[in-house]
C-alpha cells in the first residue's frame, strides 16, 4: 500500500515535469535541424536543378565558342582574320595606293548572303564603275553571279573617292535596297588586301592558296546570319561553284 503510494507520487512528479531541470541541457533547435534533414519529405531537388543549370551553361558556352571559331576567315593561307570584325565599314579607304593593281576576288572569300546572291549584284557593281570611267576587265562584265569580280583600276584611291561621291546620288535617285551598298564595297575593300599580297606570291603559290580556299566547304556568312544559325541550329553549306582566274600584271 505504502509502496503504491510512493510509486504514484514519483510517477506524478516525473510526468508533471514541464521544463528541463536545472542541471540538464536540451538543445531543441539543434535537435530539430538534425531531424529536419532526416525527414523523408525533405527532397534534394534544388541541388539537381543547380547542377543541370550549370551543365547547360557550360554546354552553351562551348557551343557558342565553336560557332565563333567557325566564323573566322582564313586569308592568304595563314593569317586569320575575323569576318565579323569590320561589319559596318562601308566606304573605307583602301590601305594601298598602287597603280595598275589587279584585284582578284574569289567568291569563297566573299561574304554574300543568300538574299544578295543574285546576278544584279555583280552587274550593278560593274555599272557603277563603268559610269565613272573606271577600267573594268572584260571578265568582270561577263560575270552575272558573284563567282569572280576582277577590277583593274589605275588609282584605287581615286575610284574610291569617286564611288563615295556617286553612291549618295544613286541612292537619292534610286531607292536601292540595302543589300547592294553595304556588303559589296566592304568586301571589295577587304579583298583588296588579299590582292595586295598576291604581288609577293608566285602563280603556283596563288593557285595552291585558292585551291585551299575552295576546298573549304563552309561559307562564311555575315554576322546577322550567324545569329540566325545560333537560334535555328542550321548551318547552310556553300552552294557556289566558282572559278578562279589569276590576272598577272
Amino acid at each position, binding site marked *: 500500500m*505504502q*509502496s503504491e*503510494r*510512493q*510509486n504514484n*507520487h*514519483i*510517477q506524478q*512528479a*516525473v*510526468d*508533471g*515535469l*514541464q*521544463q*528541463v*531541470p*536545472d*542541471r*540538464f*541541457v*536540451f*538543445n*531543441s533547435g*539543434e*535537435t*530539430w535541424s*538534425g*531531424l*529536419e534533414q*532526416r*525527414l*523523408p*519529405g*525533405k527532397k534534394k531537388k534544388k541541388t539537381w536543378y543547380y547542377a543541370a543549370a550549370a551543365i547547360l551553361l557550360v554546354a552553351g558556352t562551348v557551343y557558342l565558342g565553336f560557332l565563333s571559331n567557325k566564323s573566322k576567315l582564313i586569308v592568304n593561307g595563314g593569317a586569320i582574320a575575323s569576318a565579323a570584325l569590320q561589319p559596318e565599314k562601308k566606304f573605307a579607304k583602301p590601305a594601298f595606293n598602287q597603280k595598275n593593281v589587279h584585284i582578284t576576288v574569289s567568291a569563297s572569300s566573299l561574304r554574300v548572303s543568300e538574299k544578295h546572291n543574285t546576278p544584279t549584284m555583280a552587274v550593278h557593281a560593274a555599272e557603277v564603275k563603268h559610269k565613272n570611267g573606271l577600267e573594268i576587265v572584260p571578265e568582270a562584265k561577263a560575270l552575272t553571279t558573284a563567282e569572280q569580280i576582277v577590277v583593274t583600276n589605275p588609282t584605287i584611291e581615286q575610284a574610291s573617292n569617286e564611288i563615295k561621291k556617286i553612291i549618295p546620288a544613286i541612292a537619292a535617285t534610286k531607292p536601292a535596297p540595302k543589300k547592294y551598298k553595304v556588303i559589296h564595297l566592304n568586301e571589295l575593300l577587304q579583298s583588296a588586301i588579299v590582292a595586295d599580297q598576291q604581288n609577293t606570291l608566285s602563280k603556283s603559290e596563288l593557285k595552291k592558296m585558292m585551291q585551299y580556299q575552295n576546298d573549304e566547304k563552309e561559307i562564311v556568312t555575315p554576322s546577322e546570319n550567324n545569329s540566325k544559325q545560333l537560334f535555328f541550329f542550321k548551318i547552310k553549306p556553300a552552294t557556289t561553284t566558282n572559278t578562279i582566274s589569276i590576272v598577272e600584271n
Partner: protein
Amino acid sequence: MELLQLIRECKQQGITAQKYLYDLFAVQMFLVCRRYLKSDAEAEEMVQNGFLKIFKGLTGFSYTTDAAFVAWMKKIMINECLQELRKKNSFFMVAEENGVETISGDDVISKLSADEIYRLITQMPIGYRTVFNLYVIEGYSHVEIASILNISEGTSKSQLNRARKILQQSVTQNHLYAERKAK
C-alpha cells in the same frame, strides 16, 4: 490547433505541422529519454530518432485520444532508448532469482519535489534505473519487464529493490545534508 488536426497534417508530411508537433512534445520526450540514458547528448539523439519514427509511423496510427497519442509517442521513445542501451551493453543485471520486493518504511520520497526526484533517478546506475523507470513510472509488471529486458522476473524484482534502496539512501543523505545546512 487541435492535436487531431495536427496529426492529420503531419500525416501529409507538412513540415510546419511536424515542427509544431515537435515543439509541443520535445521537452517531454527529452525528459523521458534522459531518465534512461547517461547524458544529454545521448538523450537528444534518441529524441531525434524517436520523432523520426513517430513521423514515419503516423500513417499507421489511428487517433483515439490525446493521452493515447502521447503514450504511443512515449513508448516509441522508450523503445529507442532501450535499443540504444542494448547496443552499448549498458545493462548489468545481477541475477537474483529469489528476489523479493521490499518496501521501505519511511515515506521520505513524498517530501521531495519533482525536480529532486528526477535528479535522483538519473543519478542511479543504468541497470537499476531501467527497471525502476519501467516499473514505477511506466507501470510495466515484472513479467513484462523481464520479457522486455530479456531477464528473469526475480532479477527484475531484485533490481527494483536495489533501486529503491539506492534512492532512499540518496534521499536520506540529501535530507541530512539539507538539515545540517539549515542548522
